[in-house]
């Protein structure tokens, strides 16, 4: 097995009495499109924050290319690792181009002057996300799905080889969702030795369709990890999500999931007593 580009080993973290990550191992390997899925509150976002080094886990270690991430400066990390957070609060009316250009931050000089190479990189990122005609629009006027594309473009302009994306397609329509996963795969293949992507998503259908490795997280623990068809079984879906699901194979042999009905019964016990 190849050495991981980014890895978390035996990570444990609690917010007060609530354990959010309990002995979690995860790794990004060259050319890997890793997808983390799991129900609300499973610890997905916390794991991403630990991996990006902004949250120091109480236990365990994160290594970026073999070096402990806590020994690296933010600028150094930002050249290797680009992060798209779950939500982006923008209090000022920056243009789309300005937002994407912020991705160049770790490569600019102290006065933040952009050179021709920076502008080319921003143009490439805008083009890849189909944002060329949006470049001069003010960010707050965009729709939620368009804002997500801007966040992705900014991560691309950063020209880091590792991407950590927290629900990057939550507000996108189906077309843009599929397109996002497709270009992520292409992007990885441009530098397969160096690049890897970790995506957190609730979209099990696309996760199953595109992931090289699927990680199923629940209550801060890794319930299952591996190829999508090993991870997604009707039993696990029922246990973790409380959903009765049918799993078939698509033409390429990948699992296709159909949710049939919810098994969640709030307050079921008292109902019976009342009858």
């Amino acid at each position: 097995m190849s050495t991981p580009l980014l890895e978390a080993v035996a990570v444990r973290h609690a917010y007060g009495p609530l354990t959010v990550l309990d002995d979690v191992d995860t790794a990004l390997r060259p050319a890997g499109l890793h997808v983390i899925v799991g129900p609300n509150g499973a610890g997905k976002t916390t794991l991403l924050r630990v991996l990006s080094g902004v949250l120091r886990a109480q236990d365990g270690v994160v290594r970026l290319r073999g070096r402990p991430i806590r020994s690296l400066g933010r600028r150094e990390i930002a050249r290797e690792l680009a992060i798209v957070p779950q939500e982006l609060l923008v209090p000022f009316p920056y243009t789309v181009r300005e937002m994407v250009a912020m991705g160049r931050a770790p490569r600019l000089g102290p006065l933040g002057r952009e050179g021709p190479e920076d502008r080319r990189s921003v143009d490439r990122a805008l083009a890849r996300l189909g944002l060329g005609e949006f470049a001069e629009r003010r960010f707050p006027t965009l729709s939620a799905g368009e804002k997500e594309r801007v966040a992705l473009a900014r991560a691309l302009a950063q020209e880091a080889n590792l991407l950590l994306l927290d629900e990057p397609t939550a507000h996108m329509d189906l077309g843009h969702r599929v397109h996002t996963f497709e270009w992520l795969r292409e992007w990885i293949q441009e530098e397969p030795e160096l690049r890897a992507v970790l995506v957190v998503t609730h979209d099990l259908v696309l996760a199953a369709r595109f992931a090289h490795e699927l990680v199923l997280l629940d209550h801060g623990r890794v319930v299952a990890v591996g190829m999508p068809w090993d991870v997604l079984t009707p039993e696990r879906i029922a246990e973790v999500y409380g959903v009765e699901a049918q799993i078939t194979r698509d033409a390429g042999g990948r699992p296709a999931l159909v949710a049939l009905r919810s098994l969640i019964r709030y307050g079921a016990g008292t109902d019976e007593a009342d009858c």
Partner: protein
Amino acid sequence: MTRPLLALAALLGLAVALGLAVGSAEHPTREIVLEIRLPRVVLGALVGAGLATAGALLQALLQNPLADPYILGISGGAALGGVVALALGWTVGLGASTVPVFAFAGALGTTALLYWIAAAGGRAPPHTLLLTGVVFNAFASSVIVFLTTAVDLSRVAGIFLWLIGSIRVVDVWVMGGVAAFVGVGLATGIHGAFSLNLLSLGDETAAHLGVEVATFRRRILIATALMIGASVAVSGLIGFVGLVVPHLLRLVIGADHRVLVPGSALLGAAFLVCADTLARTLLAPTELPVGALTALVGGPVFLYLLRRELSRLRV
């Protein structure tokens, strides 16, 4: 990027020319222009630049377009520092710079306190900060009232005169001190302008993009306090410059801090020079306090922005 700044510099030039040409004397002599009007115009420009730049920095730091040194109580904290020095008659070996240094300490303490409260819940909603400002202003004025009743009457008049926001001619050493404080603050802001863009998106996003947030934030807090402390020390409480100026600029030249920070300094300087010229000519020979004039413009603008910001939050 430089064109809007050149236009703003030209605007400042016009404001200065106006400030030198207009006044209560019908046939101003050379002395009146050079020795009375010029120092006042220069000081007005420095204070305006300091307050407007401080507003722009605070807005980025707190991710809140409604931040203003006066509204948030930082000017009040600086005033409290200054009054302590005036009331107790301390000089502690600082001579003429005692009041500026105490005002700086008051501004720094208040900014740190404000940040500490704001940071408790991640990005503080606008009203939390405004509430903090209101409470702190009330607290600062009560301490000021307490201090002024405790000192002898001969000093009280001086203190109240100082508190009402107006540009007073000060000696050349104090002027130099103000220029140094504002200059260092402005240079820090311009140097960190791109990082301010990143910080305005939140601490975590800034960290993701390579900013060492804690260090950078500390530097900006000190720069802000320097500019506010120096401005308050020589001109008392002048409100809303830090709110109105960056806001107007964002509408015209956009939100990029690489233009917004130097632009705020230029427009703030031009704005206060004009306001001060108006204040001393409108009812000449009686002088209006310029602080009353800026509040006359700033108050309604602030209420309008607050209303807009709140309706945006509801969406």
